[in-house]
């Protein structure tokens, strides 16, 4: 069986900076896979390569066996890939509801869209309360929820999350992560990029550890939690 997402020996550069030095990873249908690593490790760059926002200089990114590199970023939503960028990508001048509608931009089925709005509201009841608010005025946590809700509006089969816990209070992080699990239970495959390895490894099935553009470890989440190096560097256990 081929993996849903297959990244093979991908190299990527920002000018002369060699940001990805041969990354390979797989995500199977129905999994939660996490990609952990410190600042500047190349996590965001990996996601940008998957979304065709950056072209790898060598290697390939395949979705269900199909090379994603030949597509424009704007075509990926229709392929079932949705991304929640780092630092909450919401359209800040639009209302919550308008943001959700934008998430379904490439879809034409009005009834299905309305249904999905209700589904998002069920996942994030806070958004329902605030559906008419201009999203730039939402709190950080609410914006994160909105960005995730917006991504869900394209009915993705693969959801890419870039550090959803960034800058949020621990309670809120827990709430967001349990929603991620819920989204996964409802059938969406998830690639979760995190610095918060403790939380990420609790909900993920498998994990990869990225350091300065290279994958240094990959294992199932349980073993990674017990791994001495991970404990020392990412979990703060002495």
């Amino acid at each position, binding site marked *: 069986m081929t993996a849903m997402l297959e990244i093979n020996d991908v190299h990527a550069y920002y000018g002369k900076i060699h940001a990805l030095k041969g990354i390979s990873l797989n995500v199977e249908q129905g999994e939660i896979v996490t990609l952990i690593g410190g600042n500047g490790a190349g996590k965001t760059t990996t996601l940008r390569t998957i*979304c065709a*926002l950056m072209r790898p200089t060598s290697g390939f990114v395949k979705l269900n066996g199909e090379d994603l590199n030949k597509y*424009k*970023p*704007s*075509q*990926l*939503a*229709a392929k079932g890939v*949705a*991304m929640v*960028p780092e630092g909450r*990508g*919401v*359209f*800040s*001048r*639009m*209302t919550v*509801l*308008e943001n959700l*509608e*934008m*998430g379904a*931009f*490439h879809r034409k089925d*009005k*009834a299905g*869209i*309305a*249904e999905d*709005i*209700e589904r998002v509201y069920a996942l994030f009841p806070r958004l329902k309360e605030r*559906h*008419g*608010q*201009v999203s*730039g*005025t939402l709190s950080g946590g609410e914006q994160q929820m909105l960005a995730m809700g*917006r*991504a869900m509006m*394209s009915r993705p089969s693969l959801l890419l999350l870039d550090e959803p816990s960034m800058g949020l209070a621990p309670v809120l992080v827990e709430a967001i992560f349990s929603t991620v699990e819920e989204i996964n239970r409802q059938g969406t495959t998830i690639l979760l990029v995190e610095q918060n390895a403790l939380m990420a490894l609790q909900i993920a099935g498998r994990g990869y550890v990225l350091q300065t553009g290279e994958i240094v470890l990959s294992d199932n989440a349980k073993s990674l939690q017990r791994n001495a190096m991970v404990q020392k560097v990412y979990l703060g256990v002495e």
Partner: protein
Amino acid sequence: MNAIDWRRAIRIGLVLGVAVLIASVIGMVQTFDERDMIEDILTLGQLLLFAPAVYAGYSAAGKSEERRVAAPPLLAGLLAGLLTGVPAVLLVGLAGWWTTIRDYFVNVSPQLIDILTFGRGALQGSLMLLAVMAVLGLIGAAIHLIPARVRRPLVNATLITLIFSLFSDVPLNIANQFLPRDIVRRFFPTKGVTQLAAVIVFALSLAIALWWEFSGRTRRQQRMATITAEQRRRNSLIVLAVSAVLLLVLPSILGTFLTNVMTQVGTFILMALGLNIVVGFAGLLDLGYVAFFAVGAYVTALLTSTGDLGLGINFWIAMPIGVLAAVFFGIFLGIPVLRLRGDYLAIVTLGFGEIIRVLVRSDLLKPIIGGAQGILDVGRPSIGPLTLVTPQHYYYLLLAACLLALFVSWRLRDGRAGRQWMAVREDEDVAEAVGINLVGTKLLAFAIGAGFAGLSGAIFGSRVGSVFPNSFELLISINVLAIIIVGGVGSLPGVILGAFVLVGLPELLREFVEFRLLIYGILLIVMMLVRPEGLWPSAVRRREMHADEESPPSVAELEAPRHEATQPMV
């Protein structure tokens, strides 16, 4: 109990005093003095001199919360007014002592000194100026003592009278259409208005303002509260019908001169609506917008001209070609340029605008497009047996074009394209992630914007009858951009209002053309400080600028789209 901030009073007085001094030294006061506002009473120059004193007094006294004792605020006003006069008096003194001052400040002429000293000589005149300014400051401060319900109508009536006498050309030209000459003369001398007219206008506007203040406002609120949706719809239909009739008969009300001004305004409305799509809707800063206006004008002129360079084709065939040429140029420029963001885009488009102007003027292309001599005898459109010649004729052509552009803008804004532009303007990466094609979205805005400018240019060339390189300067691009900013970025009514304020009003004040850019600059700065969202902002812009003071949006506003979205669920 003494809440007067004396330092503030002094500061306001001196700042405005220096402003008066600068206005004098650069020749503004003297030039403006030649414009009568109210015959034998007030010139525009005097207004420029005196209004700051009144304002200084008003705002120096305004800050104090304690109004039970009237004396301190009045004194602060007096002081501020007095100080407003001091720099000008120093100038008078300096001019008397340093006789060659004119070699350095050419505008410090005997006439200016005469204006500043009321023609009474340096010493007596200076004292008089100080006294007048102090009294005006006092009056300004005293405005606060009037009860609010009387103060507002009084201030409004005064402002209306001043505006009426400053733009007296408008009522004068309308009156000329309907009234015999000797009656018109009684109200309008060569410039400004007579005292009689000023009194009538003041009394009338005061009466109306008082009525509004004491009973009109509440009555309207009551009516609005009980109005049904049915009535509201009928009311807006009536308003629409009346405006339509008004727009149609306007040329015969306004007369030739004002209709000509209207055609000038229309040319700019058309351009501004186009740039509004590029800048306001899509958020792409284009500083070379005049290039598309030029392309539309030149292509149409070349095709229709009956002169040496032209082909003499019918205008109605040439105009669409001109518009298409502009659209083509928009796309042609857009493809390489739209990968750039923000400032870079502005610089590249600026360069492109200049390239077009230089090319058009160059000797290289002279055999084809006439170089500095331009293209003469541009063809005029005809409808059946009627050939469009007069400003009135072109008024209707421009009206039709503007309505079309307005309709297109409005449909695009509320449609899918509008959403796309808004998304791209806010976050390009997320926009792509939800499936919006960046380049296509931007190109669409560029192409439509260019098309409107091309249409405007095509009509412009035909209306003026000739096309010269000088008509396509950078200044036009800046002018159109300023219209959008002053009116309200992204707002359709704002753009129209902006064109009237920045193109229409200056046409009525032609004699001050040398100060036009200065006034523009001041106006823009004041706008950015006082009303950054523009005179008539769009809803989106308003909520963005005032997000911090925003109450939760009204129920009616929210229910409509939500309702639609949830319907299929039940």
